[in-house]
C-alpha cells in the first residue's frame, strides 16, 4: 500500500494534506445523545425550495410525523424527531455565516417518544426503482455528505442518463470528521444494503466504494461486508484533501472527467455519501424517516470530543454541553469540517441534516491572521484540484473585475478552500470567490429583474393603451348612445312633427 500511495502522490497534482485531527474521535463509537429541551427544525435543510409546514402551533405530533411537506421537484420534507408539541413556527437563527434567521418549526419534546405507525418493508430489494426513489423522498433523505441535495432526485437521474456506476463516497477528507468512518465500521451492512438499493434505483451495475487509506478499519469492515456482492468493489483512496469532492473522486476512480458545468450522471456516474447509503437502508427497511444523524463533535476546545447520533434540530449548544462543554477559549465554532464548513454566528443554532460536524476550534487550529500581498508563489494554483489560478482570479476580483475572473474559471471553482489553506500570504482566496460568485449571482438577479421589468412596462403600456382604447370606445359608445338617443328623440319629435309638417333636412344634418 505504501507503494501505491507513493504512486498516487506522484500522479495527483493537486490537493493539500491538512493535519487530520481524526484521532480525537476516530475511536469514539457513535453514541446516542438524549433528547434536548427543544428542537428547532428549519424548513430548508436541503438544496431547493423550502418545505411547507403542515402543522400548526400547539398541535401535538408523534415521532416520524410529517411536519412540513416538500414543495416542487427539488425539495425535501421535514419530520418530527420525537413526539411533542409544536411551540412555534417562525424565524429562528440557523447555521449560516450571515447570522440571519430562517423559517423553522419549533418542537418541544414531551419525552414519551411515541411514534407513528411506520410501514416497514422486509424486502426493499423487491421494490420497483421508482418506488425506492419515492420512499427515499418521502423519508426526507438528503445527501449527508454536506451538499444536502435531496437524495431521491439524484436517484432519479438514472432515468435521464444511463448510469453504470454508483460511487460511494467514503473519502471523508475533511480533518476532524470521523462520523462516516464510524458509520462504515459500525454499520457496514447498512451501507452495503443502502448502496445496493440505490444502485437498483439508478439501474447501475457496479458499485465502487472509495475510502481514504487513512481509515484502514473502515476499509476492512466494508470489504468483508461487500464480500458477498461481486458487483461491489472497495477501493483505497490517497488521503488528501479534497479527495472526497465528487469530481475528484469520479476522476480518480473512473479516470473520467465530469464536463464543466455538468453532472457526473452525464458520464454515467452518481456519487453518494456512505452515511446517505446507511440512512437509505434504514428508511426503506423500517419506514422511519430521516430524523437523526451522526455528528462528529471535535476540536481542541471540546472537553470530550466524540461522535454522536443527534436528533435533527438539537441546538449546537446542547450538543457541546453533552460533550462536557468547552475547556479552552474558542476562536471559532464551525459546522461541518474546517475546510469547507461554515463559521457559526453563535451556538444557539440547530444541527440540521447536513451537519457532519460541530467543531470548537482554538486560535492555533483555526489559522487566519492578517493577509499580506500575494507573492505569486503559485502554491494555490498547485493545490487547486480544478487546475485554476486562484491568485489571478482573486487579483481580478479585487480589482472589481469579477467577469474577468469568470473568464479564467471562477465558475468551475468548487470552493474547496485548498488554495486559501496553503497560501503563505494568508489571502482569503475562497472568500474572494464566494464574494464574486455572490455578486455575479446578484447581477444575474438584477438582469432577470430588468428583463421582467421590461415586460412589466410593456404590459403596463399595453394596459394603458387598452384602457385608453376602452375609454375611448366607451366614450364613443356613450356618445353614440347619446346621439342615438338624441336621434331617437329627434326622430320622435320628427315623427310627431311629421304628423304635422316634414323636417327631414334638419335631421340628416
Amino acid at each position, binding site marked *: 500500500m505504501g507503494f501505491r500511495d507513493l504512486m498516487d502522490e506522484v500522479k495527483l497534482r493537486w490537493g493539500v494534506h491538512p493535519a487530520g485531527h481524526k484521532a480525537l474521535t476516530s475511536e469514539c463509537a457513535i453514541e446516542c445523545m438524549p433528547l434536548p429541551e427543544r428542537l428547532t427544525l428549519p424548513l*430548508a435543510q436541503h438544496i431547493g425550495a423550502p418545505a411547507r409546514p403542515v402543522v400548526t402551533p400547539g398541535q401535538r405530533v408523534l415521532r416520524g410525523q410529517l411536519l412540513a411537506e416538500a414543495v416542487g421537484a427539488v425539495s425535501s420534507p421535514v419530520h418530527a424527531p420525537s413526539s411533542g408539541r409544536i411551540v412555534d413556527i417562525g424565524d429562528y437563527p*440557523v447555521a*449560516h*455565516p*450571515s447570522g*440571519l434567521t*430562517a423559517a423553522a418549526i419549533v418542537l418541544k419534546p414531551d419525552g414519551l417518544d411515541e411514534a407513528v405507525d411506520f410501514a416497514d418493508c422486509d424486502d426493499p430489494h423487491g421494490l420497483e426503482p421508482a418506488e425506492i426513489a419515492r420512499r427515499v423522498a418521502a423519508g426526507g433523505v438528503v445527501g449527508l455528505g454536506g451538499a444536502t441535495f435531496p437524495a431521491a432526485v439524484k436517484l432519479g437521474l438514472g432515468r435521464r442518463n444511463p448510469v453504470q456506476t454508483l460511487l460511494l463516497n467514503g473519502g471523508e477528507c475533511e480533518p476532524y470528521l470521523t462520523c462516516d468512518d464510524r458509520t462504515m465500521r459500525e454499520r457496514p451492512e447498512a451501507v452495503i444494503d443502502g448502496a445496493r438499493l440505490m444502485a437498483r434505483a439508478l439501474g447501475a451495475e457496479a458499485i465502487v466504494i472509495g475510502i481514504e487509506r487513512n481509515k484502514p478499519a473502515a476499509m476492512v469492515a466494508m470489504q468483508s461486508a461487500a464480500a458477498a456482492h461481486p458487483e461491489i468493489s472497495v477501493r483505497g483512496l490517497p488521503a488528501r484533501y479534497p479527495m472526497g469532492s465528487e469530481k475528484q473522486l469520479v476522476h480518480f476512480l473512473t479516470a473520467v472527467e465530469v464536463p464543466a458545468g455538468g453532472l457526473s450522471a452525464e458520464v454515467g456516474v452518481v456519487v453518494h455519501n456512505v452515511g446517505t447509503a446507511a440512512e437509505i437502508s434504514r428508511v426503506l427497511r423500517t419506514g422511519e424517516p430521516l430524523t437523526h444523524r451522526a455528528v462528529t463533535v471535535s476540536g481542541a476546545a471540546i472537553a470530550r470530543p466524540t461522535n454522536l447520533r443527534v436528533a435533527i434540530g438539537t441546538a449546537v449548544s446542547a450538543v457541546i454541553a453533552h460533550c462536557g462543554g468547552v475547556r479552552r477559549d474558542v476562536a471559532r465554532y464551525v459546522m461541518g469540517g474546517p475546510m469547507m464548513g461554515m463559521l457559526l454566528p453563535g451556538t444557539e443554532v440547530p444541527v440540521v441534516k447536513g451537519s457532519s460536524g460541530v467543531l470548537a476550534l482554538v486560535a492555533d487550529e483555526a489559522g487566519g491572521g*492578517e*493577509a*499580506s*500581498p*500575494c507573492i505569486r508563489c503559485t502554491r494555490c494554483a498547485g493545490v487547486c484540484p480544478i487546475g485554476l489560478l486562484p491568485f489571478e482570479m482573486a487579483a481580478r*476580483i*479585487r480589482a*472589481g473585475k469579477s*467577469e474577468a475572473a469568470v473568464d479564467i474559471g471562477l465558475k468551475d471553482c468548487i470552493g474547496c478552500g485548498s488554495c486559501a489553506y496553503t497560501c503563505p*500570504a494568508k*489571502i*482569503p482566496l475562497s*472568500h*474572494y470567490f*464566494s*464574494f464574486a460568485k*455572490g*455578486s455575479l*449571482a*446578484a*447581477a*444575474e*438577479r*438584477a*438582469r432577470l*429583474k*430588468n428583463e*421582467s*421589468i*421590461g415586460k*412589466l*412596462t*410593456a*404590459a*403596463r403600456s399595453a*394596459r394603458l393603451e387598452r384602457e385608453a382604447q376602452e375609454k375611448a370606445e366607451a366614450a364613443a359608445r356613450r356618445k353614440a348612445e347619446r346621439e342615438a338617443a338624441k336621434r331617437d328623440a329627434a326622430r320622435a319629435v320628427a315623427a310627431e312633427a311629421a304628423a304635422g309638417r316634414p323636417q327631414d333636412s334638419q335631421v340628416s344634418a
Partner: protein
Amino acid sequence: MLIAVTSLTLIAGCLGLILGFAARRFHVEPPETVSEIEAMLPGSQCGQCGFPGCGGAAAALAEGSAPVTLCPPGGPALARALAEKLGVAADLGAMAEHEPTIATVREEICIGCTKCFKECPTDAIQGAMKQIHSVMKEACTGCGKCADICPTEAVSLVPLPTTLGNWRWRAPACA
C-alpha cells in the same frame, strides 16, 4: 521649380480624386446603434437617468455624451453590458455603492388615492381606489416616482431587505 510644382500637384490631384471617389464609393452607413442600445435599456421610461425616457438615454449614450452608468434601474449589470457594447471603460465605482431599494407603503397613512398606482412605470403597486396599496417586491425598480407623488408621504424607499436568498459574502477586507 516647375517640375516640383507640377509633379506634386498632379500627384495630389490624383490622390484627391481617388480619395474623394473612395469616400463616396466605399461609404458605409453607420450602424443602428441607437435602437440597439434602446433595446438594452430597461424600457421603464422612469427618467432617473435625467433623460426623457429610455429613448433619450439611448441617443445620448450613442453619441457618447452620457456615461454608461446612467441608468440606476439597470444597475451595474447594464452598465457593464453598455460599456462592452460601446467599447468604453466603465467606472462602476459610483454605482457599486448604490444599494438596491424598493418602495414601501405605510398602510396607516395611505389614503388610497391611487396616485402612486398610476405613476408606477412597472405596475408594481397594487390596490384600487380608496384601498390601501402595497408594493410587489419583484416588480419595483426603486425609481421613487411613487414616493414623490404620494400626497401623504406614505410611500418611502427602503433598502431591499436581506434574506438568506439574497445574502452574499462581502468583499474580504484587504490585501
